[in-house]
């Protein structure tokens, strides 16, 4: 189900550390050690974040155990952008109608007073 998949992507993106990890990976692939450097958190904690990102399809990880590096995957981010665009269009039209409604009730009020 597309919605469940989006929920997983959004949940993965909801954490600031994980967003920072993605930002780092947008520059180049990196190992767990390299990713842990800027943060005051343990290697196991970084590994847990990477698992969440991998499950959401936001990164892939190479299989070589020793120097296992992570790579950013852009496709899920495009899904997020599409989701946002759908609701942006909804609100654009909806707020046009609100604007017309407010003008309408304001002018009615003006005529009465």
């Amino acid at each position, binding site marked *: 189900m597309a919605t469940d998949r989006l929920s997983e992507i*959004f*949940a993965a993106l*909801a954490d600031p550390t994980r*967003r920072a990890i993605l930002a780092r990976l*947008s520059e180049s692939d990196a190992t767990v050690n390299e990713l842990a450097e800027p943060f005051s958190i343990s290697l196991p904690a970084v590994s847990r974040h990477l698992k969440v990102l991998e499950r959401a399809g936001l990164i892939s990880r190479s299989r070589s155990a020793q120097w296992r590096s992570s790579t950013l995957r852009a496709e899920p981010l495009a899904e997020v952008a599409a989701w946002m665009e759908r*609701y942006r269009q909804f609100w654009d039209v909806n707020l046009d*109608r*609100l604007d017309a409604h407010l003008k309408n*009730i304001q002018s009615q009020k003006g005529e009465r007073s």
Partner: protein
Amino acid sequence: MSSTSTELVINRVFDAPRAVVYRAFTDPDQLAQWFGPVGWSVPRDSVEMDVRPGGVQRFTMVNDADPSMASPVDGVFLEVVENELLVGAEDWDPTGDPSQSERLTLRIEFADEDGKTRLTIRQGPYTEEIMGQAREGWGSSFTKLDALLAG
């Protein structure tokens, strides 16, 4: 990348006092007059509003050309500050396909701006993680709502 956001933010200034804009969102008679995309209507009798934390917010958008296409919004208010703030969690879908229904959080802020009203709408996906963060911020007043959401 560092600007990756998980919520949609929309800003618009309306030429009306804050209380008037707030009422357009909270008064069932008014909401029924404007809410929904072009070609869709909100029947007045579908609107149920209990504007207080824990209160329900329900209404249905119905397609004018094909009334069998209906898109219900079924939500609960989480935070309410009169003429200033509405926060809700709700299930809805703007496409009219109930199987595509999504659980969302919606935050609507009303602010004065040169005699007009700046409306800021933040809409994001409902995730346990996001709601967990919100709960920490809201503290113990949330206990009652937790029970309500779980029920």
